[in-house]
């Protein structure tokens, strides 16, 4: 039943200079699912995202997104993407609305003009992320958490069935992180989105993810976050990083919940 899957990765191998960066990765995702890929830096998280987005060629295996091969032009505008938090110039001459509007302009023809339906989408995207009142604020003056929300709204404005987020919690304090993950959870439920995010932090995301995949070149664990209790496995995947990953002990809380 490959057609019901929004993401279907089978036996994916990526090599860099003869060295495997990803080994035999298989991963599936459905509608209304939030999947977190966690792993140490250099473990292949970004490589996996790039393969899914069709930005790098892969050596073996198959990656299908929304039923299409990764990188297919049919996927342009179908995957909402949140890049790794960059530093933005405080004096960037853009309002939050302008940033959200970008994806509406992306697929226009010769005439770049927002019509009523575009403006509606922009408004409803800003409402979805609770940033309605900030539409006219300069983007550069927003807080890290507010910027992430605006960037989510930019992805939502094109109404994608799937969203991919690269380290979305970087630079956010714990409170902002929790409210950000809550937002993702809500969007997943309300819009039936498939959300795939990568993170080096297993703690924060585990209370909100439906499934977690622990990636360090290979997928070492794949399942419900509450089942992710094997410290030996985590130590094997993350090595010395394990303490950092579990720093806020969120995973312990989710174990108690289960």
């Amino acid at each position, binding site marked *: 039943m490959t057609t019901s899957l929004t993401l279907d990765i089978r036996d994916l191998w990526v090599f860099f200079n003869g060295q495997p960066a990803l080994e035999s990765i298989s991963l599936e995702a459905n509608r209304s699912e939030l999947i977190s890929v966690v792993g140490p830096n250099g473990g292949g998280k970004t490589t996996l995202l790039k393969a899914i987005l069709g930005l790098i060629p892969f050596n073996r295996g198959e990656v299908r997104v929304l039923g299409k091969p990764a990188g297919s032009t049919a996927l342009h505008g179908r995957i909402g*993407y949140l890049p790794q938090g*960059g530093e933005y110039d405080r004096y960037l001459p853009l309002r939050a609305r*302008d940033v959200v509007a970008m994806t509406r302009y992306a697929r226009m023809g010769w005439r770049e003009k927002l019509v009523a339906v575009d403006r509606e989408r922009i408004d409803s995207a800003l409402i979805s992320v609770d940033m309605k009142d900030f539409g006219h604020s300069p983007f*550069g003056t927003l807080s890290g958490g507010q910027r992430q929300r605006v960037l989510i709204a930019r992805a939502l404005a094109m109404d994608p069935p799937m969203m991919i987020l690269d380290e979305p919690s970087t630079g956010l304090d714990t409170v902002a992180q929790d409210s950000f993950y809550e937002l993702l959870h809500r969007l997943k439920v309300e819009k039936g989105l498939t959300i795939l995010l990568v993170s080096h932090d297993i703690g924060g995301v585990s209370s909100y993810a439906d499934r977690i995949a622990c990636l360090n070149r290979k997928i070492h664990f794949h399942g419900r976050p509450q089942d992710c209790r094997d410290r030996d496995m985590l130590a094997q995947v993350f090595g010395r990083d394990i303490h950092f990953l579990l720093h806020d002990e969120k995973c312990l809380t989710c174990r108690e919940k289960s």
Partner: protein
Amino acid sequence: MPDLPGKIMTELLQLSFFRNAFFISLMLAVLFGILSFFVVLRRMSFLGAGIAHTAFGGVALGLFLGIHPFFTAVVFCLVAAIVIARLTGTGTISADTGIGIFFSFSMALGALFIALKKSYSFDLTGYLFGNILGVEKLDFFLVLGVMAIFIPFILFFFHRLLFLSFDRETAGISGIRRDALETSLLAFLALIIVISIKIVGIILISALIVLPASFGNLFFSHFRGVIVFSVLFTLFIMTGGLFLSYHLDTPAGATMVILGTILYFTALAIRPRRR
């Protein structure tokens, strides 16, 4: 008592070289005002300065071979812009290194061609620092031609260029043709630099691609205001600099750049605090 400014202007505009320089300056001001917005946003000012210096090798080759220097300079600048973009885009070398190497190489070639020509009859400082006396009718039509393609390009692709400048990766994933748009923008940067050499001069052009939008950014937090102010600023310094240079008997390009720099720092000192 000196003549009235209006009378001087009327008199000056009757001189054909000055009239040409004046109308070219008006058009260039619009081009630089808009181009500067993207150069500053994308932090390409060093690339702009590099491409401008690269023009020197092209100009010298044209003079050496007896071809109109515009054409050889355009080829040099376009090739430099595209090669630098490719090398830095693939991560082979950093932009900083690429530009640094390229422009000194091209200037060295220029020095070589001039030495080989063994004739110093042409106006070297004119190319380096601008000389409005060298402006011909052809220059007027070249600027008009570039304007006729640059303005529609901006009108058609403005928001996509904005997206691309803000977040290149997401722009590509969202369906924007990154390579085509970026190459076009670079090509316009190269073209606009080459057509302004005679007025402003190779060495001084970088001021005109950095100052205008930086000035606009001092007053506005939205791109519309920035661009409008950027164009107005460039119109003021280019035409003001032109008349002032005649009045003070100073080189036009240098006068424009000094006027612009003074204006920029004055604005920086007295502007109202922004959020």
